[in-house]
């Protein structure tokens, strides 16, 4: 936006301040109504987009087997172990009660474990503890022996000592009401647990499992919202208060940032998207970013108030001087956040969009609502300038003086820090997304330390055909794989049906321990399984281990305290093992853990495109703002290296990072760019005022140094507060962002100025040579162009001189618009009319350009809106010409090589209407005589011969009056040399006291008898049009 628009804008806002207050409040209220539509989605799976291939695999797996929404109750009998009669009775009780939880599908506990044994030749399937309330000590001891001998139970439902145990409750969630289903289950489970603990103080009971995880996503999200919001407000208020010492200023800040947050969240509500544990941070991010905009306005107000008491002037100056930069800063930030749409994780896409909307809301409010407030509500005026020079000046001197060491040192630092990037490892353990402040996390750690693992790799081993799972060869491979998995150190438990089958085989052979192996043939396997399934208790069926057509068997390997890296490493070994030993059953694993294991890898790749596009968009925007390619390129450095440095530093310090890392670059890019924009804009301004690079740097520091420091500080504090989130995805994102932003300020203060001085120094050294060369060229051209008086009297020279004089007299008209009408008459006298508007812009012919013109037709009505743009060139170059067709809204570059064609069927050819330049022809003066038309003027008669062989004419003879040098008549001779057309020009009027324009041109074709009259009216000079009005891309706008 240029300056004049801005003045108008700022003044307009101030004048209509009440309107903007009302509009701002109304907009906030309208968008804010969307808040009522917000709900919260606690599902951990929100991180998986529907198109995520890992999620698709997981969905397919769960459709075939079962979706494991489970609750794990971890038990610890403090003394003497679990297998005491009264404790078993309590477990039996708890098992019964667990069945009463909502949506229960199955309960697996120690007491109802389906134990098989043989009595003679008969196989018996029954609960391990058939009658818990009346169990005897011997029965309990026997049950313990059985339980700790079963591989499928150990490290999952029981620890080898029999002290820790667990119970698993499986749910089938209807999924109709995700917001309430899980919390209801958890609430009831917690009541159940509380009652159990009260009744059995000697038994420790803890809760974990996937419903607890999901619930945790909701709890931590709400926690973040509740605990961080007041902190954030407090910090912001403090910063603003310290910076400006004004309570009113603080209140204004609060209202703008709160309204921005409401707009962002409200938009989410209107879009009908539920909140989740990531988007819950959006309002806090919006507020942090909005503060930066507000601070720029308030800082300006603080400076202006020293000079004037007029509060409206404070607001106006703030808008005028900082409005454009604030707009750019907000837009680049929004672009960065919009780039999150490339993430494969929907919560990040939503976060990006919400924040982008919020930022745009903040921008709107900062440019309208806030200045209106400033103009209305009194802020206490201070008359002393807040001394920023004192702080910033020494820094500027330091950077200038230590320029070279800084350049080398910073470059080294960047390289050293960035080399930490390879140390980053992507770790997405969704269980450990939540830190130890949460009971869930402590209980889960307890479970994994003492019993088993929650992280599971699920292998749905394919048997290749229906009922293929009964195939002994398949089973043998499954058994080997199961045993191989069990032998792996990180694996705590493997659930495999081969264990049951081996045991069944033994049972069917009268419990002969030697027969503890897989059934001998397919038929036996099928029979045993059939018998077993018939005898299983309610809800204990095998559907979650074998798929419906019995073509695949599920093997679940649990790991305790395993990281993403551990799991991926285990699977890599498993794939190797399968490829070598059991290629027929080789398959990639799935499961929630596995999807999370891969999500960061996928997202980093997906976000790469988004980040690059954001970088391109933002850099393009910078180029537009700075209008300087060199500065634009330089700006890339401080925009990109902060993220590289932050990532490297993280690599050295922490190493492990969640999927949050993928979105950080794009997110921070838009934010760090703000500082660069402010810095480079001021630097460029300093240079434009003729300062040396050093002085420009001093000037920049004094102008924006403090503001940059304060806004960066506010942003870092804001993100630092977010980083205290107990949810690792949010925490990592905020920490990395805070780190990146701080490093960006370091780069902008220490590296960028040093870089600018170094680059500009080098260029100034080369400058004198360039100037000299240019001067020499100019002098040379001048010498050639100087007229030589010796030839002044030849007919050719006289002709040229007359034409040049005519040209000279018509120089400097600038621009004009007019209306045109063409009346076409055929030999029979029938008329057709064309009406148009014309726009004309004068160009300097010495640069090889002819004038520019636009014609927009309004009649006949079917071509209304059709427009042409011509940028004329000196012959023999073709003009550049575009045609706009309103019916299809298309702008077409068209060939202008057709000199002789007739304009819309008239007697005027394109050549006649095109811009005529002196250099297009060679001239000869023929004679002087009275001008045609009886005007009483004397005319020079000049012959012009076109230089371009493609011209339709062999020559033109033109009558030019000797008083004003206007053209009165032209005879056109065709290529054969015959007179073809005669043009008569009449109705000259003078404009701007200098330029003559005709009202009427009559072209008579003497060969065909057709004629065309061209009427030109409503000449309007000095309309202020410029090149931008004659831009081909703008033709649609000019045509109406």
């Amino acid at each position, binding site marked *: *936006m240029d300056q004049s628009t801005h003045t108008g804008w700022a003044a307009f806002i101030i004048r209509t301040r009440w309107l903007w207050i009302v509009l701002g409040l109304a907009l906030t209220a309208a968008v804010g109504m969307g808040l009522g539509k917000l709900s919260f989605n606690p599902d951990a799976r929100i991180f998986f987009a529907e198109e995520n291939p890992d999620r698709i695999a997981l969905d397919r797996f769960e459709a075939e087997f079962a979706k494991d929404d489970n609750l794990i109750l971890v038990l610890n009998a403090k003394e003497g172990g679990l297998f005491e009669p009264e404790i078993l009775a309590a477990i039996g009780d708890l098992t019964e009660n667990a069945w009463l939880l909502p949506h229960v599908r199955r309960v697996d506990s120690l007491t109802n474990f389906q134990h098989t044994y043989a009595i003679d030749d008969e196989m018996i399937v029954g609960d391990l503890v058939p009658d818990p309330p009346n169990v005897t000590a011997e029965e309990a001891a026997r049950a313990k022996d059985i339980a700790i001998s079963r591989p499928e139970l150990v490290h999952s439902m029981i620890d080898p000592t029999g002290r820790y145990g667990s119970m698993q409750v499986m749910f089938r969630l209807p999924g109709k009401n995700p917001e309430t289903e899980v919390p209801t289950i958890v609430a009831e489970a917690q009541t159940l647990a509380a009652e159990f603990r009260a009744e059995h103080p000697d038994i420790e009971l803890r809760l974990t499992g996937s419903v607890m995880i999901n619930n945790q996503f909701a709890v931590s999200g709400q926690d973040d919202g509740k605990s961080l919001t007041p902190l954030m407000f407090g910090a912001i208020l403090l910063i603003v208060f310290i910076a400006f010492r004004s309570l009113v200023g603080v209140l204004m800040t609060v209202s703008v940032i709160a309204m921005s947050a409401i707009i962002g969240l409200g938009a989410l509500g209107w879009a009908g998207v539920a909140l989740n544990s990531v988007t819950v941070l959006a309002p806090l991010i919006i507020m942090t970013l909005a503060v930066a905009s507000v601070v720029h306005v308030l800082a300006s107000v603080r400076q202006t108030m020293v000079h004037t008491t007029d509060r409206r002037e404070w607001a106006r100056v703030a808008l005028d001087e900082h409005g454009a930069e604030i707009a750019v800063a907000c837009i680049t930030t929004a672009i960065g956040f919009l780039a999150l749409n490339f993430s494969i994780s929907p919560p990040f896409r939503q976060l990006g*969009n919400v924040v982008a909307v919020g930022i745009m809301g903040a921008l709107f409010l900062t440019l309208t609502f806030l200045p209106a407030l400033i103009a209305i509500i009194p802020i206490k005026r201070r008359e002393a300038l807040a001394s920023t020079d004192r702080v910033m000046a020494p820094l500027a001197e330091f950077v200038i003086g230590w320029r070279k060491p800084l350049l080398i040192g910073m470059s080294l630092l960047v390289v050293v820090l960035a080399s930490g990037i390879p140390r980053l490892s992507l770790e997405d353990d969704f269980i450990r997304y939540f830190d130890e402040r949460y009971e869930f996390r402590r209980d889960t750690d307890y479970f994994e330390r003492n019993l088993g693992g929650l992280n599971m790799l699920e292998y749905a081993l394919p048997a290749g055909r229906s009922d293929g799972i009964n195939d002994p060869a398949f089973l043998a491979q499954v058994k080997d794989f199961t045993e191989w998995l069990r032998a792996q150190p990180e694996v705590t438990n493997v659930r495999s049906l081969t264990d049951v089958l081996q045991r069944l085989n033994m049972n069917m052979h009268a419990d002969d321990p030697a027969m503890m192996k897989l059934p001998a043939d397919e038929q036996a396997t099928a029979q045993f399984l059939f018998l077993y399934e018939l005898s299983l208790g309610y809800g204990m069926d095998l559907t979650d281990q074998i798929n419906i057509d019995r073509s695949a068997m599920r093997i679940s390997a649990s790991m305790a305290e395993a990281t993403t890296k551990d799991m991926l490493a285990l699977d890599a070994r498993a794939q190797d093992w399968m490829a070598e030993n059991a290629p027929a059953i080789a398959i990639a694993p799935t499961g929630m853990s596995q999807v999370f294991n891969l999500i960061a890898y996928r997202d980093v790749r997906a976000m790469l495109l988004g980040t690059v596009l954001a970088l391109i968009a933002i850099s393009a925007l910078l180029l537009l703002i700075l209008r300087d390619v060199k500065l634009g390129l330089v700006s890339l450095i401080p925009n990109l290296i902060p993220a590289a440095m932050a990532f490297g530093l993280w690599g050295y310090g922490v190493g492990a990072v969640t999927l949050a890392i993928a979105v950080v670059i794009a997110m921070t890019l838009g934010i760090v760019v703000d500082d660069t924009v402010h810095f480079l804009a001021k630097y460029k301004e300093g240079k434009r005022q003729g300062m040396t690079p050093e002085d420009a740097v001093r000037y920049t520091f004094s102008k924006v140094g403090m503001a940059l420091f304060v806004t960066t500080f506010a942003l870092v504090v804001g993100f630092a507060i977010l980083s205290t989130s107990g949810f690792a995805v949010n925490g990592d994102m905020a920490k990395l962002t805070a780190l990146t932003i701080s490093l960006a300020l370091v780069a902008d203060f220490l590296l960028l100025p040093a870089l600018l001085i170094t680059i500009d120094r080098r260029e100034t050294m080369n400058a004198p040579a360039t100037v000299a060369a240019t001067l020499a060229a100019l002098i040379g051209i001048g010498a050639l162009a100087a007229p030589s008086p010796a030839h002044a009297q030849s007919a050719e020279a006289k002709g040229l001189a007359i034409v040049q004089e005519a040209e000279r007299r018509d120089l400097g008209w600038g621009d004009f618009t007019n209306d045109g009408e063409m009346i076409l008459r055929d030999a029979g006298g029938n008329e057709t009319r064309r009406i148009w508007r014309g726009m004309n812009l004068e160009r300097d012919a010495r640069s090889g350009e002819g004038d520019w013109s636009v014609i927009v037709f309004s009649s*006949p*009505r079917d071509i209304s809106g059709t427009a042409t743009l011509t940028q004329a060139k000196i012959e023999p170059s073709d003009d550049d010409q575009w045609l706009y067709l309103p019916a299809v*809204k298309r702008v077409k*570059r068209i060939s202008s*090589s057709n000199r002789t064609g007739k304009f819309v*069927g008239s007697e005027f050819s394109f050549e006649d209407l095109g811009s005529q330049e002196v250099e297009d022809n060679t001239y000869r003066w023929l004679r002087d005589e009275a001008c045609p038309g009886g005007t009483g003027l004397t005319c020079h008669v000049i012959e012009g011969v076109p230089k371009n062989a493609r011209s339709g004419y062999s020559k033109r003879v033109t009558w030019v009056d000797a008083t004003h040098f206007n053209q009165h008549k032209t005879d056109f001779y065709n290529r054969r040399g015959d007179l073809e057309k005669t043009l008569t020009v009449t109705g000259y009027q003078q404009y701007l006291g200098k330029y003559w324009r005709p009202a009427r041109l009559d072209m008579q074709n003497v060969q065909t008898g057709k004629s065309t009259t061209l009427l030109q009216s409503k000449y309007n000079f000095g309309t202020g049009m410029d090149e931008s009005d004659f831009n081909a891309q*703008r033709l649609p706008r000019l045509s109406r």
Partner: protein
Amino acid sequence: MSVAILLLMATPAHAGEEVLGADFAELRGEASVEAILFPEDPLFAGQEHNSLSFAIEPTGILEWNSVDNLGGADVTATVRPFLRVDTQDEERTHFDLREAKVDLRFGDTDVTLGSDIVFWGKTEVDQLVDIVNQVDGVEGTDGEDKLGQPMVAVRRIVEVGDFSGQASAFYFPYFRERTFLGEESRLRSGIIVDGDDARYETDAEEWTPGFAGRLAGFYGDVDAGVHIFHGLSRDPAFEVSRTTVVGGQVVPTELRPVYGRITQIGFDGQYTSGATLWKAEAIGRFDQRNLDFEREDYVAAIAGVEYTLFGISESNADLGLIAEYAYDSRGSRALTPFENDLVLGARLGLNDAQDTSALLTAAVDTETQETVLRLEGERRLGDSFKLEIVGQAFLNTDDASVTNDLRDDHSLRITLSAFW
């Protein structure tokens, strides 16, 4: 009722008259009657023999110069509603706001708010890069009629060295579904597509936002543009929505369009060398579902040349010769008929007072040799009427070809329009 609208719209335009304090006000428009004649009998049950329809398209424009309250911006408000009433196919009877927008101009910056039509592209047969507007599928078979697209567009002039152009950013808050011909119409696929039954692959459905950026301009004799688009694809994929059982076989009877999110990057360019225009367009599109309903990333390109013979045989007439080749990496899985096609054409412009012109094209599939012949001609009658004739023929339509369903739909479309 439609007569009343017609009368209302036909009230004379008073250019220059004060309307809402505007510096310029105009009401103009076009009303037309269209008949489509088919020499052969319909191929599918339900199709009517010939077609008759009426359309009206008024345009209202208000313009204010240098509005102080808007920072000295020039403001133009445009409304261009469109209504077609078809006597047979109720799907063809439709209304659309082709344009309903406010254009603001601040110096080098233009801002457009509202429904608009935006054209991108250089080539003649098909514009790969033209992705902003949805096709009004019931209007013509060439896909050149577009539905208005709600948008916020910010454009800014960019002058860097000798490059002169414009950078634009678009935000599309709302998505327009393609229109499809109903059962009664000819020139449709054998299986009916129910456009109202559309399915979206995004949660926000038609409110799924779209974004686009474009930089276009010229440098010397080269006009070029690049763009990026992210949002719902204007080209739907199709899935079977209704089936019937015929002789124990399940046969689809109705299709449903499915709209999914895509990203597209593209280039379009033209090199103007005297009377020869070299044109090319290319796009890469990600996540588009193909004819097999699978997501496929693909590239497509069109390249061609147009050469104009000016003033043929000493007359005023120009003859333009066009040759273009279209390629699509999806081959037979492409949603477009132009997947490996050569298009040859000739455009004749008489340059007379009546603007008489004609265009003959032959689109030949280089693999199947199926050919679509098309002849368009138009001429103004008097000052305010225009006659337009479009003839189409489908040749070499073998069973597997895209145009097989149209094999008996050779047609002649005659349109008489009145302008005011």
